[in-house]
């Protein structure tokens, strides 16, 4: 390739010197597409460095005046541009190849960038532009289904809450499993917000140029002790030299829940409850309760039939997005400026999210050698928050109320207990406020100095300032403020996280064939978190909602915590003859989080690659245009534990306003990183002139020295001790396939497919320890050697005894014997919340000025435990309203059903068991976008360079067997490494239809 280039340059120079006086002549020819050998109309033919150009006609023909020393540039959307020097030819026929954009693409890596062709590690990359119009509050949800092996799950349809991301499985049982997020070189604060607030919601992903996920050890080891869960690199947009370009976009949408459940109506409810009471000889008690619950109305005539579920949802849910950007610059200075307003009104009542964000990215060449720059991002996010899923004031918990209960009494006041079965949280809508505001500034300044042509030094200093405030007020009618004339709380936290990276980059080609690049440097990070709260009660009026009005301040606290990392890192890339690739990287990480005996850790990785298609026997083969094999092995760590877990501590514990102390933690001076050794073997290929490209990867991650909260006998005074013990394995494969199905002028069709299989296995726990059994009586997730983390373990439900309606459980492992005594049930593995497969399929079309993109995303082979089932699917065990399927309860001897006899208060089958487990697989039409670009000819009159109107739909269709609200669920108050796949009155996801317009000028 290099030879060809030299030849061209030589030729160019030659022609320049010889034909300076040459005359312009007519050059003509035909442009043909390589994929079907048909003529390509509409191809731009431009003379390089001029504005002279023509467009090929319907037969692909063109004709242009050109000098012999001029170069023709043939370009067409979706094809690789070609250049041709006119020379002495008058007829130039050219064949254009479809552009599959593989080898030449630049990918951001840790402390640098590389062309994709030179990579020996596994990095998944998504362009920000692909996500720009997806109507979700954070970029994590937008990434769903787009990267192989990157699992994304948002806990529910509540706005502003956490999103779970797992890169190649779960590596840790008790430590963190989220990837490290690095934005423009600054490791971001991604947790530590008040409540369940997701600090990553502060990022306006319209500003992002690209997301890269470093998946294997070779790519990630340069982030050392925090890389075992993968690293997400976020690069924001930078300016482009040239005329200043403006872009304005407006988008509005309406949202609704993806699914609803069916609950009993008043008549069915009365029937079930009376039967339930009658079956235990307590009909009179039930009827007295029905009297109480029906308020002013008569349950005997079904006077009231309230659909409480409907009340939990907001009929006016929707989204609004307005964004503006300007970018441009000259030779020395380039800028990107943006502002955006995002507003989402949640599908649940009392829930919304608003973000105002601005960004200025600048870089300036002081001299040829010295560049300065800054990326400055600022945002304010306001989130009207909701209580956790398990709280009475979680809107979805309204479904527990009886359909015979009127919403309001005869005076128009909302009914509360005792008429309502439980707290009627509609009162919160009238009488409470819960506003969360976060201010975020992520700023990074850098200087880069070219010491020599082949050596540069870069220094970066970044801060991530996260400032969050939560103002809660619960008025005198709410359950939290009822007896105290209101309750108010104000919480503040500030996380100041600063980071500096300083490194050299050396780049040189030796003897033409040895391409050598090296990076070496250090970084230091410190994060300080301050937290303060005050709470009070006894407010004179419900309208006075700040604590200044509280007659009694009942609580307050402040706390400080911090951590530091000091790191040294290096990477060497070596390429021989453009065929053989090798990368070595290493990082030494020191952290305050670890014991005195183990402050520093060393994380090396090595990888090799071979571009087989560059070998002479394959070179130029159009059927197999790229074949690369690569392999990597290395060590990464996980440091996501508490800041002081290694110390033996006493914490404060007061009694009767007297200060006190008590032991809070058992020491472990040996505490150190979790170590993940990962092997990755991959093949990259391109077939038929890059029409089909793909990647296949196999990986095997072995995590040892697990940071484990080992259960110890509670008789010691402690429940757990943090130890480095145990081993976990994740292995699997990933497939990425991209194809250009059709590439004609008026019609293109591209398909992109990704698919991953991850197998998670717990291999070892503490010596002699076989399991960490389910830690809750209501949920079943446990940890067992040889099983996936969080596997469901408990009694297997055996249906209903047809003779007497008893709930039955299997009493032996073989499932041959049953018992009606829950305590005698054999506990066994009854399900697995970890998906077996997940992936995404994107089809993109352009038809004339229309563009259409359809993303299907799916998760398969996982189970969900519906923890609310013990209340609403418990055959009328108590007065909670039941789901419709409970009407199939056993009634008479001989009835064959899965729903036991209704028995008030006797828990006939209401305990945690496989009864409440179901298949959570789903396939979802995640995102569909249909756009129309107004033809340029029309736009020119309005001095507009581009205009596109579009429709974007999110979560339009969901295919699943799951019986609950939505299969994408992870009850927020429970969600942890082990507790996964649980539903507990968790809100369904939002389905959004939106329309937008984008104008560039």
């Amino acid at each position, binding site marked *: 390739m290099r030879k060809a280039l030299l030849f061209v340059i030589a030729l160019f120079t030659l022609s320049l010197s010889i034909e300076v006086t040459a005359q312009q002549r007519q050059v003509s020819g035909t442009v043909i597409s390589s994929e079907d050998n048909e003529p390509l109309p509409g191809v731009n033919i431009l003379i390089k460095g001029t504005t002279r150009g023509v467009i090929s006609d319907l037969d692909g023909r063109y004709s242009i005046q050109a000098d012999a020393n001029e170069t023709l540039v043939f370009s067409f959307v979706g094809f690789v541009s070609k250049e041709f020097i006119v020379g002495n030819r008058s007829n130039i026929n050219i064949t254009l190849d479809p552009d599959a954009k593989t080898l030449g693409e630049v990918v951001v890596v840790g402390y640098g960038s590389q062309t994709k062709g030179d990579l020996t590690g596994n990095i998944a990359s998504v362009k920000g532009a692909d996500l720009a119009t997806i109507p979700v509050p954070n970029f994590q949800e937008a990434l769903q289904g787009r990267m192989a092996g990157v699992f994304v799950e948002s806990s529910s349809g509540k706005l502003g809450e956490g999103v779970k991301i797992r890169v190649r499985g779960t590596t840790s049982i008790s430590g963190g499993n989220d990837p490290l997020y690095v934005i423009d070189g600054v490791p971001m604060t991604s947790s530590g917000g008040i409540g369940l607030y997701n600090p990553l919601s502060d990022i306006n992903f319209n500003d992002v140029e690209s997301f890269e996920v470093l998946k294997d050890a070779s790519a990630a080891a340069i982030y050392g002790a925090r890389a075992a869960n993968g690293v997400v690199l976020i690069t924001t947009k930078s300016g482009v030299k040239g005329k200043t370009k403006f872009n304005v976009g407006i988008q509005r949408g309406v949202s609704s829940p993806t699914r609803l459940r069916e609950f009993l109506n008043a008549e069915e409810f009365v029937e079930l409850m009376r039967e339930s009471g009658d079956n235990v*000889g307590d009909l009179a008690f039930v009827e007295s309760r029905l009297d*109480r619950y029906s308020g002013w109305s008569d349950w005997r005539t079904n006077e009231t039939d309230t659909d409480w579920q409907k009340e939990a949802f907001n009929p006016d849910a929707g989204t609004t997005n307005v964004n503006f950007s300007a970018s441009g610059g000259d030779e020395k200075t380039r800028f990107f400026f943006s502002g955006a307003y995002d507003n989402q009104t949640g599908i649940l009542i009392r829930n919304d999210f608003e973000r105002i964000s601005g960004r200025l990215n600048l870089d300036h060449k002081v001299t040829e050698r010295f560049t300065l720059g800054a990326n400055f991002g600022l945002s304010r996010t306001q989130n009207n928050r909701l209580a956790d899923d398990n709280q009475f004031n979680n809107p979805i918990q309204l479904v527990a109320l009886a359909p015979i209960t009127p919403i309001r009494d005869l005076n128009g006041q909302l009914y509360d*207990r*005792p008429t309502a079965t*439980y*707290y009627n949280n509609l009162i919160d809508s009238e009488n409470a406020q819960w506003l969360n505001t976060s201010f975020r500034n992520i700023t990074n300044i850098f200087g880069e100095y070219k010491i020599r042509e082949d*050596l540069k030094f870069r220094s970066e200093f970044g801060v991530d300032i996260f400032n969050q405030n939560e103002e809660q007020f619960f008025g005198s009618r709410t*359950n939290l403020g*009822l*007896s*105290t004339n209101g309750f108010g709380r104000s919480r503040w936290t500030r996380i100041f996280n600063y980071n500096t990276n300083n490194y*050299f980059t*050396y780049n040189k080609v030796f003897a033409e064939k040895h391409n050598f690049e090296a990076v070496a*440097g250090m970084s230091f990070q410190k994060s300080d978190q301050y937290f303060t709260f005050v709470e009070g009660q006894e407010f004179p009026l419900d309208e006075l909602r700040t604590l200044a009005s509280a007659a*009694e301040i*009942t*609580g307050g606290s402040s706390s*400080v*915590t911090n951590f*530091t990392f*000091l790191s040294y890192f290096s990477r060497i890339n070596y390429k021989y003859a453009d065929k053989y690739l090798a990368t070595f990287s290493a990082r030494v990480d*020191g952290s*305050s989080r670890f014991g005195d005996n183990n402050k520093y850790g060393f994380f090396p990785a090595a990888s090799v690659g071979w571009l087989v298609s560059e070998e002479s026997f394959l070179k130029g083969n159009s059927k197999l245009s790229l074949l690369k094999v690569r392999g990597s092995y290395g060590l990464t760590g996980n440091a996501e534990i508490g800041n*002081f877990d290694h*110390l*033996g501590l*006493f914490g*404060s*514990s*007061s009694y*009767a*306003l007297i*200060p*006190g*102390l*008590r*032991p*809070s933690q*058992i*020491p472990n001076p040996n505490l150190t990183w979790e170590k993940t050794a990962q092997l990755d073997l991959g093949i990259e290929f391109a077939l038929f002139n890059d029409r089909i490209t793909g990647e296949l990867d196999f990986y095997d991650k072995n995590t040892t020295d697990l940071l484990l909260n080992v*259960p*110890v006998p*509670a*008789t*010691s*005074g*402690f*429940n757990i001790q943090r130890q480095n013990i145990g081993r976990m394995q994740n292995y699997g494969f990933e497939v990425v396939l991209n194809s250009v199905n059709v590439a004609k002028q008026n019609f293109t069709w591209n398909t992109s497919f990704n698919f991953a299989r991850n197998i998670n296995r717990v291999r070892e726990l503490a010596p002699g320890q076989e*399991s960490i*059994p389910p*830690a*809750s*009586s209501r949920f079943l997730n446990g940890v067992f050697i040889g099983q996936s983390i969080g596997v469901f373990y408990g009694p297997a439900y055996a249906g209903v005894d047809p003779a007497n309606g008893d709930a039955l459980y299997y009493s032996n492992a073989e499932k041959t014997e049953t018992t009606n005594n*829950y*305590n005698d049930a054999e506990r066994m593995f009854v399900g697995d919340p970890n998906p077996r497969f997940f992936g995404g399929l994107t089809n993109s079309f352009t038809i004339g000025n229309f563009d259409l993109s359809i993303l299907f995303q799916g998760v398969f082979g996982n189970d969900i435990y519906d923890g609310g089932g013990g*209340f609403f699917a418990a055959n009328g065990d108590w007065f*909670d309203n039941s789901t419709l399927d409970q009407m199939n309860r056993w009634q008479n001897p001989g009835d064959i059903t899965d729903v036991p006899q209704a028995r008030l*208060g*006797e*828990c006939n089958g209401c305990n945690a068991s496989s009864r409440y487990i179901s298949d959570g697989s789903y396939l979802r039409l995640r995102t569909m976008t249909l756009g129309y670009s107004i033809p340029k000819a029309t736009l020119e009159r309005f001095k507009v360079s581009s205009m596109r109107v579009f429709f974007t739909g999110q979560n339009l269709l969901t295919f699943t067997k799951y019986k609950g609200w939505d299969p994408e669920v992870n009850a927020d108050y429970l969600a942890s490494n082990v507790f996964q796949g649980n539903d507990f009155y968790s809100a369904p996801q939002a389905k959004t239809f939106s329309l937008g317009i984008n104008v560039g000028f």
Partner: protein
Amino acid sequence: MKKYIITGLISLTAIFSSCDDQLFQTPFQSIDQSLALNSDANVKSVLIGAYGEMRGTPLYGGRLQLFSEMLGANSEVRWEGTFNQPREMFNKQIFVNNSFVEGTWAAAYRAINISNNVLSALDVVNESDRARVEGEALFIRGSMYFELIKLYAQPWSSGNTTTNLGVPLILTPTRAITEENFVSRNTVAEVYQQILDDLNRAESLLPAVNSFLARNYVAAGQLSRVYLQMERFADARDAANRAINAATTNGKSLIPVYMNAFNTDNDSNEDLFTIQVNTQDPANDMFTFYSLPEFGARGGDVSIQPVHIDQYDLLDNRRSQFFFSAGEERTAKWRDQFKNVKVMRLAELYLTRAEANLRESTSVGATPLADVNRIRARVGLPPLLTVSVSQILRERKLELAHEGHSIHDIRRTRGTVTEGSTSYQFNDPRMVFPIPQREMDANPNLVQNQGYN
């Protein structure tokens, strides 16, 4: 080039060498265990920490009382709340993973460990306070073992006390997890002996005046409960008598209006021991479950049945505790929020002394009749002329109803609990808690109670 790199690295090293110190951070909200017990003030703070633990809802903050009332409900009260954990106790079908059962077990052993920490560091306590500090720690440890043995083992009255399994006895503080932490259960007799040792020594060390914290008469009162369980009536009588004497000498007395003894911000004259509740530290699970939303509680999870209320004489002022709300009768003993949790009232000790005196045919301190009539007079009932054990037990039941005595009095008197059509003997294994499943899993040396696998 080498020159540049070396210069660069040297300057970097210079700038960031100070960073290494940054790797040693100390927490702001906790102190190292080596410092926690090294001074008089610190050990006393740890002692308060033990009260803080004992005060929690899993222990005297409400659940110990609730468990007793639910196990001994006897169709007189009814669990109607949504929480499964108390309902399982009420139904006498307790699941091995009941989180309340697990929580109380763990909390009691935490309180024991804190007490053991205090007891291990008495030598740094000022000599003038050493006896009191030791006495308080022993009182807490003994009380915790007493509460554990009553719930997690067969009662003393079942006999076989030297073979029936009690709970593990831990008498030293835990500083690290070793093989020794994988303990086995001691026998019922061994545990009772330890309780007696702790409480007797506590009584001898404690002063009579010590604000609302442990005092000598509180330890004596607790001892009287222990002896009653062991059916050592003479000892129970003497302990109760000592408690009454010390308490009344120090200003304690029955307060004239019965219901004024409840829902108090501060300890009343009648309170021998309470858990201090305030708005900063509001937890009181008896309030949470017995009271009603309009008072800031849950939905009225416990109702009082007519069969109970009918046992009170129409003249009995104690009837005034009952009120109708949310469709059921309720007791006002736990009506208000932020009020102290009653653990031991003087009235109990009069009734204990009366019963023990009568059973022993003695009149230590006062005649049984005088003690019983003292209780009756206060609530407007006419004096008895003669008295029997069953009359005293009936008086005791009504006087102390809904205060956490129910199952324990039934057990020691070998009574029965009847719920609906099912009767449970005092020693029915279904009324003994399981050893929590979590604990069984964490410690293979434990043996589960009868009836739980």
